[in-house]
């Protein structure tokens, strides 16, 4: 059973600036990986490369044992992404947005699936309202619905907590964990240690494009994680 996501020697540079300097990751199927790191450590770049939106400068990426470079279009049906932006069109209604992406992902029986998702993120009441009229929290939940449309086996989230209060964030994680519990692999970047530690199986700390620390969540408590984080990122301040 190949790991859900495996990268070896992953490098990404933009001209002179190198965002990722060789990342080796192995994420087993069904597990949840939390990625921490200061701003500019390469978290978003890593997520976008795994989602096949950005091409790596060098290195190998295997999604469910298949080379991402060669099977990009097929593998995208297995990948779902929730980024900082919602990827949804302001002029279109919630239903129209999901209907559009459902067509793009080739989802069968679109209306049933969209209805299901709107209930899951409890936005059914607003399904015909325009996205531009939604609050940040509602847009984030709609973005999650969009990412789950095609039942991806791997879900990527880039700092899902941005713009959400504790209650909304808690609700969001319930939604993520409820659907296909245990079979879906989740990789997310985050700044809130406490919330992340509660939901993840493994932890990684990125620092200036490299993995500075890797461990299983059960071996860490909140204090230990924060202390480790200070150590890894302290190098920059000295």
């Amino acid at each position, binding site marked *: 059973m190949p790991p859900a996501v495996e990268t070896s020697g992953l490098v990404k540079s933009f001209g002179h600036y190198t965002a990722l300097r060789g990342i080796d990751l192995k994420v087993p199927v069904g597990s949840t990986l939390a990625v921490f790191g200061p701003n500019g450590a390469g978290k978003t770049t890593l997520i976008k490369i795994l989602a096949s939106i950005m091409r790596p400068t060098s290195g190998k990426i295997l999604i469910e044992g298949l080379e991402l470079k060669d099977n990009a*279009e097929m593998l995208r049906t297995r990948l779902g992404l929730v980024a900082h*932006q*919602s*990827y*949804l069109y302001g*002029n279109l209604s919630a239903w129209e947005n999901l209907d*559009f992406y459902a067509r793009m992902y080739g989802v069968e029986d679109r209306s049933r699936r969209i209805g299901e998702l709107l209930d899951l993120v409890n936005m059914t009441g607003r399904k015909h309202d325009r996205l531009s009229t939604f609050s940040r929290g509602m847009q984030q939940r709609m973005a999650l619905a*969009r990412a789950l449309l095609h039942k991806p086996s791997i879900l990527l989230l880039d700092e899902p907590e941005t713009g959400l209060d504790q209650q909304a964030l808690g609700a969001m994680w319930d939604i993520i964990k409820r659907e296909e519990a245990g079979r879906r692999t989740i990789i997310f970047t985050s700044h809130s240690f406490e919330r992340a530690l509660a939901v993840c199986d493994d932890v990684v700390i990125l620092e200036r494009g490299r993995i500075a620390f890797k461990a299983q969540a059960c071996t860490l408590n909140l204090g230990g994680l924060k202390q480790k984080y200070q150590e890894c990122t302290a190098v920059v301040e000295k």
Partner: protein
Amino acid sequence: MKFWSSVAAIAWKDVLSELRTREIIFSVLVFAVLVLVIFNFAFDLSPDLMLQIAPGILWVAFAFSGVLALNRAFIPEREENCLEGLMGCPVGREAIYVGKALGSLFFMVLVEAVILPVFALLFNIAVLQPELIVVTLLATIGFVAVGTIFSALAVNTRAREMVLPILFLPVVSPVIIAAVKASAISLNGQSWGDMTIWLAIILAFDIIYLTVPFLVFPYVVEE
């Protein structure tokens, strides 16, 4: 099959999103009519002379209102970074180009469908002839094919409104020249036989600028 269903989905999304606010369509239409009116002030000419410059006026109105519309083509993709959302879909990057081009084509044809009768009314020239309509359509396909990829390029630059026309109009000038010449021939009552060279140029342009951007578009959107 997957390719074309995604293309249709993108084009339909563009049309829906635009018909919802109708902001671009009205501003482009008003602009095109404005161009006609200005030309009317600029040259108050004898009817037969007007016949000669009529195609020129038409295509100046189409070209500049086309640039106005194409400037807006990739705005929805910029707002919530929807372009990345599209790139995450299980479809080739080329489908995004073809979908967006079809969306813009729909609006350009819509503008032309309104401007041609208005032009016939204002300048009382029989513009609605089959030859002229076919030439206009063929030229619009080439116009939009080039315009869409330049719009995708320009939307990422600083002074987008200025960069697009300066990049785009010189490159698309052959199609505009050929369309004007062919329209002039059709206005003189001649038919297909006399405009074969111009149709050939427009068709050659369409073919080239549907294939080359198709191959090059992935490099525009991918980091």
